[in-house]
């Protein structure tokens, strides 16, 4: 039950699936798996709001693509692309273990020397962050663009994805 496959690339959707736009990363990876057939060397994960647990999945990969909701002082629905050192990696003073986020995970990955060679983050400024299983209409309308960006990154990593 323990598959030790050699993945080259990890697509990691993070966010809270029950907080509407906050979960856009998770929505994205769900649709990526539904609509496209991906080569074996790509692992796609719904990272939810897990923190340090995710480091395990960074072991041995070359490319990490993170999709998340971001607070970047943009207009709702606007997107941002960050790469490598521009993706914040640090450990914060925390009141609760829940505050372990992507920056903490990346920092811990550095400490453990399992940081991937290439890291790309695609972030979307949310418009609605409240309880709900669906995206806001605005972010829903951005999903095709976001998916196109993700597919383009995969091509950049040397992969091909085909519509199912």
């Amino acid at each position, binding site marked *: *039950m*323990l*598959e030790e496959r050699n993945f080259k690339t990890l697509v990691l959707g*993070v*966010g*809270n*699936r*029950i*907080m509407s736009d*906050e979960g856009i990363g998770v929505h994205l990876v769900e649709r990526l798996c539904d609509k496209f057939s991906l080569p074996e060397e790509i692992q796609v*994960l*719904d*990272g*939810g*709001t*897990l*923190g*340090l*647990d*995710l*480091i*395990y*999945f960074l*072991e041995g990969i070359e490319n990490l693509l993170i999709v*998340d*909701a*971001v*607070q*970047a*002082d943009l207009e709702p629905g606007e997107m*941002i692309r*960050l790469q490598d050192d521009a993706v*914040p*990696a*640090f*450990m*914060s*003073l*925390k*009141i*609760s*273990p*829940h*505050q*372990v*986020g*992507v*920056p903490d995970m990346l*920092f811990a990955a*550095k*400490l*453990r020397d399992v940081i991937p060679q290439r890291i790309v*983050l695609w*972030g979307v400024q*949310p418009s609605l*962050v*409240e*309880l*709900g*299983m669906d995206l806001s209409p605005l972010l829903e309308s951005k999903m095709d663009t976001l998916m196109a960006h993700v597919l383009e990154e995969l091509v950049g990593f040397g992969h091909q994805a085909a519509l199912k």
Partner: protein
Amino acid sequence: MSKIVIDPITRIEGHLRIEVEVDGGVVKDAWASSTMFRGVELILKGRDPREAWAITQRFCGVCTTVHAFASVRAVENALGITIPNNARILRNLVEGIQFVQDHVIHFYHLHALDWVDVVSALSADPTGTSDLARSISDWPNSSPEYFAAVKRKLSTYVESGQLGPFANAFWGHPAYKLPPEANLMAVAHYLEALEWQRDVIRAHALLGSKNPHLQTYLVGGMATPIDPNSQAAINADTIAMLKGLFQKAKDFVNRVYLPDVLAVAPFYLDWAGIGEGVGNYLAYGEYPDKDGTQLFPRGHILGKDISKVLPVDQTKVTEHVSHSWYEYDDESKGLHPFEGETRPKFTGPKPPYDFLNTDEKYTWMKAPRLDEHAMEVGPLARMIVAYASGHKQVQDTVNLVLGKLGAGPEALFSTLGRTAARCIETVVLVDQLLGWTDELAANIKNGDIDVHEGSKWDPANWPETAEGWGFIEAPRGALGHWIKIKNKKIENYQAVVPSTWNASPRDARGVRGPYETALIGTPIADPNMPLEILRTIHSFDPCIACGVHLFDTKGRELNRVTVINPNGSFSPLLKLSGLR
């Protein structure tokens, strides 16, 4: 009198916010607030009860398994389902290793920074650290060269300015008491704990999931297949691998975690007299054996009286909202979760604000009470109930720890006691994992591979209405889910989570919650760096920021500490990090 506010400005909304009044260097009063509305129960109404666990698992990124577990137990209780023995063992294993991981990670990655001055480790003599490490444990990573390498790694990060925590924590605070050599040892073990936790992820993967979220819960049992002849199921190889991983976990707990707690605690014995809390302890109990007897027993203790373990009657659980941003028709009393309502009504100040109006409503947390008593939940509550119930192994381990510290049982009722209890519990629990694995192996050998009771799976076999509750011990305390089912759908769903007990606000009678009570009397050396408040709050292992994990591209992921001086002026210390 001055007022200190600690408010994590994490992501969009705040989470746990603490306001304290300080006079003469001592906390005089305290208020705990959660500044984010969750109300996750609302999205469960009208759904299929068999699917509820997959949603409740998203309540929280840290406690995914416990919310899934509480949910399936609530449905099983409502429908009268008894799960097969193998499912019980698998649940114990999934939950048990989760506990062990959670406690170790809490200690090294969250709480240790309250006691360990990382910057001070830079001035340690690695030979001295080696001597110290060898005097407390036979753990192999203990040579002077090993600690010298850790020190070099640490200096690299500090010099490159990448270490967020070193810019943001309270390094150099006078309340740090460890010598540099001990600090360096703790930093080394912090790194080892990070490495170690990958084994836990592997164990979870073996127990049935490639995905970071477990997919194996099922109303009526587990979805983990057992088949001695299949590579895609639990078989003899899986059992052997699990045993290897559990043995490693046990080694780490007994030879690193416990010795570290015993080595650090003597420097902080004053904290055995600080942070007592409400003195009432509630445990739902956990880890049933074949006959249903729980490893950690159910019960409650009132007024620190460990001569009497009182039973837990779930009908006596109520939630008050007199100081919470919700509406009840009659707010002078609490409501049982079956009658529970989640009618949000925010009456707090509009952000940005300096203070909450703590005389009125000031939090999104409800105030749970057991028979009108505020109760502490968590490892300390479980260990006290187990100790008072005569649990031999818990008593022995508690006595061993107290003996090494030269302290009496009263030391348990404190911030230090809470931290020690978490370690004691880990020591007792990690011992069970191998035993449960053997039990599972024996069943498989005897041909018992049943993991699911399916007779009530079909809603056609359900009554028109049903109600039930699912109790579980989460790492941070007693968790309960209550469900009402009508016409095969969820009619009402309420979760009373551990941190709602601990971070409870005042109730209708003005009785404070455990955090609020525990903070009163805490000494504060420097109001601008309220390290002492974090020590006590962290000792409870708060679990509140469950809602939102938005990524801040500017790296503004920190706590804001605001100190209000007597003359009314205030100096917000907004600490930024992560920008390079």
